[in-house]
């Protein structure tokens, strides 16, 4: 997760968010927002990334627009940031698509191609020529050459070359997208096809220019708090791994921001587990060959947009967020609810659920804590009203959901064979397609699907390394009771 180039773009995005929030807290939000690019790159300042200070400011302006929650695609480049700030305050509901591409930050990477480098030894055997099924490779007497018109980028020549002299260049966002939703347009820049996009956010992590952005809802949430509304935070269990304090300290930290109450989404996970175990039992009885889990928002979007054939195999259990939000709205009918999310895809789920009003991701929460000057490790520890099970608190780990259903399983232990799709990629999407088409999964009959490799603790808006987050989450869950003890 934290290679250096990615860290640079993440730091930039976080700095912009903190500045937007500080501007919001100041006595002149609109003017101070307009000044953000100039404050970050004042006259005569260093030019760390782009060709000149003007380009730096132009890209920062775009980042501010996304931070205020707007699409870059519709920007006319003439509107002042102060006007965007005003519009953000007036907005009643967040924009529907969670992601946007900053066209001026996009490099317009060279198109993906396979080509022979100078490492070609012009060998006698020429396995590359024999490997190609499309007649795309020839030899010019000095080395092999590839005709890009004929090349299908299958990579067989790359595998055949004993010198590893053939390489494939990639466009990072296109390469990372599991569903082909982001691609270079005629202008050479990346565009997201919203009919295909599953909001998994892999392009956001992949782009080394930081050109894909989430549209933030920080202003929406902070406005509601400022207006004195009852605003309740519901945090994803992965958050435990992503702040430098204990889960018991979250309550006070959120209250310092102005939230009136805090719920663990693990509470809803305990319902998901029971419903899902029951669902699985019913399906087995009816002779279903397998069932997939249903809690990952990016996977649910994948099913809707690309894999309708697998829908009959997806569990009917709702997500932990769904059940938690239902409980919160029942207990606080007038409250505004905010889900604290490790990823971008949950924004999509929230839109379809009237019980979830807004979503903030961990990065945005982190930016709020900085702007408010809240030191989380000095917050007082408080107990949660509802104590979630160990399994519910382990939901954000790859394998955690399958293990939870297993722990709640009342049938013959041999009847439940868990398997995991640990990360959606082009390859795992193909696997799922095959399971649906053939009605068979050779690896097991309870398929846990998580879009992020490692689970939600590896969500693309995370603040910690996956390894550290894993340790914190499991240390926390170990303090709780296990569903297995109940079933004994």
């Amino acid at each position, binding site marked *: *997760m*934290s290679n*250096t180039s990615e*860290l640079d773009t*993440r*730091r930039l995005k*976080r*700095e912009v968010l*903190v500045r937007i929030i500080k501007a919001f807290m100041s006595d002149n939000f609109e003017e101070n927002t307009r000044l953000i690019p100039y*404050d*970050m790159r004042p006259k005569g300042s260093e030019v760390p990334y782009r060709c000149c200070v003007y380009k730096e400011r132009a890209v920062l302006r775009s980042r501010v627009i996304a931070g205020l929650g707007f699409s870059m695609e519709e920007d006319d480049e003439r509107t002042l940031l102060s006007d965007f700030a005003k519009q953000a305050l007036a907005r009643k509901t967040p924009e529907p698509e969670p992601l946007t591409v900053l066209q001026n930050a996009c490099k317009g990477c060279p198109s993906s191609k396979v080509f022979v480098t100078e490492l070609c030894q012009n060998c006698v055997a020429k396995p590359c020529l024999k490997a190609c099924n499309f007649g795309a490779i020839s030899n010019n007497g000095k080395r092999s050459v590839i005709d890009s018109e004929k090349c299908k980028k299958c990579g067989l020549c790359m595998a055949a070359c004993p010198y590893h002299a053939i390489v494939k260049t990639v466009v990072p966002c296109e390469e990372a997208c599991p569903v082909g939703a982001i691609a270079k347009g005629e202008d050479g820049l990346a565009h997201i096809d919203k009919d295909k996009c599953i909001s998994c956010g892999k392009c956001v992590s992949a782009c080394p220019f930081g050109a894909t952005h989430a549209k933030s809802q920080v202003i929406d949430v902070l406005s509601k708090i400022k207006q004195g509304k009852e605003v309740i935070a519901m945090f994803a269990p992965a958050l435990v791994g992503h*702040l*430098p304090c204990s889960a018991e300290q979250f309550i006070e930290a959120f209250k310092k921001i102005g939230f009136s109450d805090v719920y663990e989404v693990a509470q809803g996970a305990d319902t998901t587990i029971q419903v899902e175990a029951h669902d699985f039992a019913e399906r087995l009885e009816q002779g279903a060959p397998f069932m997939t889990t249903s809690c990952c928002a990016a996977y649910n979007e994948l099913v809707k947009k690309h894999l309708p054939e697998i829908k009959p195999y997806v569990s009917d259990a709702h997500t932990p967020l769904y059940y938690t939000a239902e409980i919160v709205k029942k207990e606080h009918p007038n409250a505004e609810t905010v889900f604290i999310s490790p990823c971008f895809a949950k924004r999509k789920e929230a839109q379809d659920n009237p019980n979830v009003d807004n979503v903030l991701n961990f*990065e945005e929460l*982190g*930016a709020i*804590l*900085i702007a408010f*000057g*809240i*030191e*989380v*490790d*000095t917050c007082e520890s408080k107990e949660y009203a509802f104590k979630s099970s160990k399994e519910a608190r382990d939901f954000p780990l790859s394998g955690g959901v399958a293990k939870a259903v297993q722990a709640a399983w009342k049938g013959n232990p041999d009847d439940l064979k868990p398997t995991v799709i640990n990360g959606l990629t082009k390859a795992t999407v193909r696997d799922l397609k095959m399971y649906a088409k053939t009605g068979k999964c050779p690896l097991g009959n309870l398929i846990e699907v998580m879009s992020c490799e490692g689970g939600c603790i590896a969500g693309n808006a995370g*603040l*910690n*390394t996956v390894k*550290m987050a894993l340790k914190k989450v499991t240390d926390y869950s170990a303090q709780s009771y296990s569903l297995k003890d109940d079933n004994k």
Partner: protein
Amino acid sequence: MEKIKVKICQGTTCFVMGGDTIKAMADALAEKYGDKIEIVPVRCLETCHESDSFSKAPYVFVDEEVVSAADLEKVINVIESKLK
């Protein structure tokens, strides 16, 4: 010889602005320098609280020297200069 004290900030700002790399840094430094240095996790020392200074987090303190926007390379450079 007295050990070089490397204070690594555990505060919220440093964590959010790149603390995940800082945690990994502690292990890497311990391995590289062994008992030549002493790694001390510290609470927020408020270096980040003045106006825009949050943007230069995470902070690491090598003895009394402040390393801003700290990464492994920068911290190693400062330690090396002290060891000379």
